[in-house]
């Protein structure tokens, strides 16, 4: 036993124990968000599996030069799948396949839509999931650790989709090319860019879960198979279209509208495309409908928010909002777990809904915000805008949901008038139309920004092992997806969404910065204004010199000039000082924290040591 043989035997024993442990492992998730535990939504969906679901994990296990991140990620994916299997209790079968080159498994992978990635040494690396149930199938072609936080949602959604073949239909009525444009041959022949644009990522994402249909901006009726109508940046809709939307809602159709006081995207495109210049940026609104429902919406006003302003180096824009978790109504299932949103040049909703309707605020601004008129704002400097914002007790609603009984916005029925006649409706045909509804039960979501749907604020391209992939940079996609899903009524899938790696910022510093911002901004802008005054003065003095006295100043003028110069350097100095003070408090706090962490306890220990040694020596010398 107690010899070299014994040692080897014990070593082998422990290796065996570890191998067993790696197969039969248990886990305790200590994270606050239970990041590594399957959520209740997933459990609910798994327990309700009514048809056999098969999952195939393709993993090139034996690849020689396995990248480190993959080696660490693959076991985690396996662990998660194991938990799925456990909870589904037989409803789910999971197979792991190793797509070695030219094997049946590789063929199966390619058939399923899982493709391999080329490694530097020429090997193909497969890591994807395929789901099937009866005739339905879904695939996650590549599993990337960057999307680990969404993994549970992706898997649960795939399972859900193979189980449920019916997808709700979303009708998109958009004032911007969200669903992409077709290539325009004529434009291409004229040498202009007419290649057509792809659909926005947000809408490609929606297509995964919904059937998406395009609806014209001047439609006069919404088809019966549309479950949810999504209206994006509607600019000056005709009365008959508004009526169509009105009736759609009253029939019980769900509406989600993105109304933008000023489209950042359109502004940007105008600046880059000479043909579009000269057109004023138009804001969007659904005025008659909103009025009937009791929602106040000043369609030209933009929201400026100090707390959520976006900073890029030294530049900042209070009209571009980077929202954190406290902006969202996290009690609402559509907004739970969201904490990183971008609203760009957004408006706000106010007012009390009419009796019969309940309003839920989904996204709100901070209390350090104000509404600024869109036209005025374009000529104002940032510092002036900041000056206008005072801390109030009121927040502004950036997105709301209305539920209940909606009254019609057209109490007199379908709008008649020039448009109706131009359509060629004969009086007889008009009389045959069904009578208009005057009220109905439904749910409507209003969002005061349309730019948040654009790729620029949702995703970024990253290069992962030679493949161009898109990575979400904000929670906007999750936000919109949640809103639409919530309207369809599927709660389980919703609760699984975005188990995102919650950002936990150092809020103390954030708040200090915001406070310093307000205090010092006033002083800085005043000093800057003083400086420009003085410069103007000096220029005047230069000009006021007598023409024939070009090189000689009168004593008074000279004195004034020197005075102005002195004031200028003094003001510039003050400005520098104030800018430094700006960061002083934060730096002071950081330095004292650094001291506390680096030196405080060691000093205490050293002191203790010295005291102890001292006491001992006294005791010894006494003996």
């Amino acid at each position, binding site marked *: 036993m107690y010899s070299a043989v014994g040692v080897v035997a*014990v070593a082998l024993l*422990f290796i065996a124990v570890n191998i067993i442990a790696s197969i039969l*492992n248990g886990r305790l*998730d200590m*994270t606050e968000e239970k990041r590594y535990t399957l959520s209740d939504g997933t459990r609910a969906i798994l327990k309700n599996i009514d048809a056999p679901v098969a999952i195939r994990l393709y993993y090139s296990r034996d690849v020689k030069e396995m990248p480190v991140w993959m080696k660490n990620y693959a076991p985690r994916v396996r662990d998660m799948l194991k938990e799925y299997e456990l909870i589904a209790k037989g409803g789910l079968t999971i197979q792991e396949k190793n797509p070695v080159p030219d094997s049946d498994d590789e063929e199966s992978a390619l058939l399923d839509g899982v493709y391999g990635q080329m490694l530097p040494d020429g090997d193909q690396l497969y890591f994807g999931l395929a789901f099937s149930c009866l005739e339905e199938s879904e695939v996650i072609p590549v599993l990337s650790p960057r999307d680990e936080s969404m993994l549970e949602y992706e898997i649960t959604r795939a399972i859900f989709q193979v189980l449920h073949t019916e997808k709700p239909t979303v009708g998109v009525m958009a004032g911007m090319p969200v669903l992409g444009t077709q290539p325009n041959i004529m434009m291409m022949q004229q040498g202009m860019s007419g290649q057509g644009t792809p659909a926005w990522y947000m809408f490609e994402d929606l297509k995964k879960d919904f059937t998406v249909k395009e609806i014209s901006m001047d439609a006069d009726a919404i088809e019966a198979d549309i479950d949810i109508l999504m209206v994006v940046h509607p600019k000056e809709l005709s009365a008959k279209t508004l009526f169509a939307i009105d009736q759609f809602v009253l029939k019980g159709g769900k509406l989600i509208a993105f109304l933008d006081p000023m489209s950042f995207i359109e502004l940007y495109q105008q600046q880059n495309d000479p043909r579009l210049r000269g057109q004023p940026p138009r804001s969007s609104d659904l005025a008659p409908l909103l009025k009937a429902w009791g929602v106040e919406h000043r369609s030209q006003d933009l929201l400026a928010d100090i707390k959520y302003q976006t900073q890029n180096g030294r530049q900042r824009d209070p009209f571009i909002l980077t929202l954190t978790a406290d902006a969202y109504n996290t009690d609402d299932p559509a907004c739970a777990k969201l904490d990183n949103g971008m609203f760009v040049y957004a408006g706000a909703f106010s007012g009390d809904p009419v009796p019969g309707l309940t309003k839920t605020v989904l996204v709100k601004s901070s209390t350090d915000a104000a509404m600024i008129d869109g036209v005025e704002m374009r000529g104002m400097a940032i510092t002036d805008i900041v000056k206008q914002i005072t801390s109030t007790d009121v927040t502004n609603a950036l997105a709301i949901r209305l539920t209940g009984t909606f009254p019609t916005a057209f109490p007199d029925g379908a709008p008649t008038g020039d448009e109706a006649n131009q359509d060629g409706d004969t009086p007889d045909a008009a009389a045959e139309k069904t009578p208009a509804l005057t009220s109905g039960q439904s749910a409507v979501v209003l969002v005061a920004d349309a730019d948040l749907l654009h790729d620029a604020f949702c995703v970024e391209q990253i290069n992962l092992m030679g493949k161009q992939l898109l990575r979400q940079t904000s929670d906007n996609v999750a936000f919109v997806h949640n809103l639409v899903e919530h309207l369809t009524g599927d709660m389980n899938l919703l609760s699984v969404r975005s188990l995102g790696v919650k950002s936990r910022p*150092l809020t103390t510093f954030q708040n200090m910065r915001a406070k310093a911002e307000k205090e010092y901004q006033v002083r800085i802008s005043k000093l800057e204004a003083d400086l420009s005054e003085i410069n103007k003065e000096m220029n005047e003095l230069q000009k006021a010199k007598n023409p024939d006295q070009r090189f000689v100043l009168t004593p008074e003028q000279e004195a004034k000039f020197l005075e102005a110069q002195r004031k200028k350097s003094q003001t510039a100095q003050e400005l520098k000082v104030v800018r430094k003070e700006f960061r002083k408090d934060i730096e002071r706090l950081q330095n004292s924290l650094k001291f506390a962490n*680096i030196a405080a306890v060691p000093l205490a220990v050293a002191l203790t040591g010295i005291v102890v040694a001292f006491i001992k020596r006294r005791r010894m010398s006494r003996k």
Partner: protein
Amino acid sequence: MRSLTNILCVIKRELSDYFASPVAYVFIIIFLALLGFFSFQLDDFFGYGQANLTPFFRWHPWLFLILVPAIGMRQWAEERRSGSMELLLTLPIAAWQAITGKFLAAWLFVGLALFLTFPAVLTVIGLGDPDLGIIFTGYLGSMMVAGVYLAVSSVTSAMTRSQVVSFIVSVVICLLLVLAGWPTVTNMFVNWLPKSLVDGIAACSVLTHYQSLQRGVIDTRDLVYAASVIIFCLFTTSVILRNRRSL
């Protein structure tokens, strides 16, 4: 139980030995100062802007690599050098109790040093809203790494009279345990060992288990790993001591 009291006795004796000399104080001061300096100054803790201790925990396995064997090397080499080994082993305690006691004492001592890093925890709690569960498993992982290093040091210090040799050998072995999971090392093996064996070697890496705990999950695999390494090393220590004794 007799064995428990014996072990506690050994622990008490060891700990008072530590604090009788400047060793304990110097270790703690250097450990805390270096850790604080690396995390907060060098690594720009505040620059990350996040209320978690990731930049802090990142340094533990590496700082431990140099400092922990310095504690561990004293376990047996000292006794053998000063001749008190014979005295210890004639006391009415079993060898395994002495071994376990010494190990636990060293482990508790490192635990104390870790406890004294509490300003870091208070800092993040004060500045934001950190996930305390992750911080807890982070410290657990840290203790695990320290335990593994100490167990290895126990073996090396039993093998030799020289503390220096014990220190160097245990640092090298611990370093190997850390690097076992690194691509450069595994790539060396991949060409002349079957893949499953290479994976097995990688699974021995202390770093993989440490990083797993850093994520906030307490996995039985990590606990089994730590326990088996520690028990194996302590067992090996007893084998070595027993054989040395009979020489």
